[in-house]
């Protein structure tokens, strides 16, 4: 179905019933992506198996385990409960930090944008705290928060929070004053202006902030897990999984952990994109 035809469907009529899987498999983009990954894996395999070309060790690839070794290592951990526990732990921490950051960050950013006094009071400290990298907070939060778990969640929260607030604030400033004026002429009160004009106007910025913030939370959670050793056995998360593999000297398993984080991050941002797609139908017209 043509994309324009899809958008012009009357409001409230459900979109095409074809399943997500069939739509994906039918798309050229999907197959192009598959081919790209295959080629990449093939080059990696050849590169690490041969080790050196023309007498020179290949940078990175020459010392890496080939993908086939990684696959073998992966197939071993797939059966282990600890590996999936790591996924669960990391996801839990990312989601906790991320959701709390959204819940606090969006209203905070809106208040900064709307209210001058609020901005005068809270913007300077906010700007002073913002340049501090989330990881610099790790030692302090380990001391401050009673449990390891809470300090990791707090650091991931910080990772997303600043990005979200800055995006909301910036988005609110780009809302076209003419929309507000047109709505005012038509009798809109402040309530209408907020829900009908300001909020939809900053929705794109909210989703940009969410996508970027989600990336940062994954970076942060992994590092925080490594530093804090993630607590007890099995509860370490994917960051600790990598660290553990490094300590144990299993290089293929390090790569397994890295790829796992890559997949986890990709899944997270895909979910955000899909929600954004649904929430802002006027943005995907072309």
């Amino acid at each position, binding site marked *: 179905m043509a994309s*324009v035809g899809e*958008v*012009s*469907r*009357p*409001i409230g009529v459900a979109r095409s019933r074809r399943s997500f899987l069939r739509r994906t498999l039918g798309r050229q983009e999907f197959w192009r992506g598959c081919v790209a990954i295959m080629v990449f894996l093939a080059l990696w395999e050849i590169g690490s198996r041969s080790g050196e070309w023309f007498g020179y060790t290949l940078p990175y690839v020459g010392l890496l385990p080939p993908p086939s070794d990684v696959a073998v290592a992966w197939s071993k951990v797939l059966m282990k409960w600890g590996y999936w526990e790591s996924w669960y732990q990391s996801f839990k921490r990312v989601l906790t930090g991320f959701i709390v950051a959204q819940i606090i960050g969006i209203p905070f950013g809106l208040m900064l944008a709307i209210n001058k006094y609020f901005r005068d009071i809270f913007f300077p400290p906010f700007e002073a705290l913002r340049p501090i990298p989330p990881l610099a907070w790790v030692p302090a939060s380990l001391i401050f928060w009673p449990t390891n778990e809470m300090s990791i969640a707090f650091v991931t929260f910080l990772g997303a929070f600043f990005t979200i607030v800055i995006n909301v604030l910036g988005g609110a400033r780009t809302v*076209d004053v*003419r*929309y507000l*004026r*047109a*709505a*005012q*002429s*038509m*009798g*809109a009160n402040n309530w*209408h202006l907020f829900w*009908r*004009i300001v909020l*939809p*106007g900053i*929705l794109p910025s909210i989703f940009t902030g969410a996508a970027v913030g989600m990336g940062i939370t994954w970076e942060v959670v992994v590092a925080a897990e490594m530093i804090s050793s993630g607590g007890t056995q099995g509860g370490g998360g994917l960051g600790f999984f990598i660290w553990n593999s490094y300590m144990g000297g299993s290089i293929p398993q390090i790569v397994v952990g890295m790829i796992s984080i890559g997949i986890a991050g990709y899944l997270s941002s895909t979910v955000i994109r899909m929600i954004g797609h649904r929430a*802002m*139908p*006027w943005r995907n*017209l072309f």
Partner: protein
Amino acid sequence: MPRQVNNIDQPGSVAGLAAGNALQASVEIRDVCKSYGEEWERQDVIKDLTLDILPGKLTVVVGPSGCGKSTLVNLIAGFERPDRGAILLNGRRVTGPSRDRMVVFQETALIPWQTTYQNVVFGPKLRGDLKGKALRQRAHELLTKVGLQDFIHKYPLQLSGGMQRRAELARALINQPQIMIMDEPFRGLDAMSRGLMQEFFLRLFEENRRTNLYVTSEIDEAIFLADRLVVLSNRPAQLRAVIDIDLPRPRHYQVLSSPEAFEYKREAMEILHQEAMRSFRPSATGRLPGRR
């Protein structure tokens, strides 16, 4: 030659004329001043402007670019307040935006996250003064009138420039304003659709002669549309001339090649040219003429 420069200095004289017809409001602009900026660099944008917008007339305001035309629009619409003086709608002071003065903005101000239909019913829905079937019917009527009946569920970004302007006209009209204020509404359209839109707009106006204030910087457009042509000075905006354009209605595009139209154009150009030249000279404070 039908030519006459009005004496505009007759306060209060037009208020009564509007009483009979809800579409035909009068606006009186009385000694209005407006300036922007902090004290030490205050710039007058409008200075002692007195002007009547007559009921049932299409008043076109022209002036050099950056002369304060848009500020005048904002004042009449109630988006901003004058520093001094008053703006009266049917004799009552304007204190804020209201549905009785609808503005069609430069470029387009359709709300991008609403479909054409949602944009059109936005005002009545907010106020709740027109509901259900009656609202749907009225919206469809208006959308058909502007030729968008097949595009009601499209988003503004999916419409062409001309369609966006027509949707915006429909959105304004459904609120039954007493005066329509158009701020360079067809700017940014290509010459072809611009001409078509002007003619379309004239048909709409001639149908019920709703009081209309039309701001433009294009002299041909001004003469083609206007009953009264108001020429503003360079910034700060002051009244330079009011020219009654006495061309026959309904008008068609050919009217612009008539000798009368040419004479109006020559006259207006003369004044505008002087003003435009002045705007290129450095101002008293040594600054370049500011933004719009």
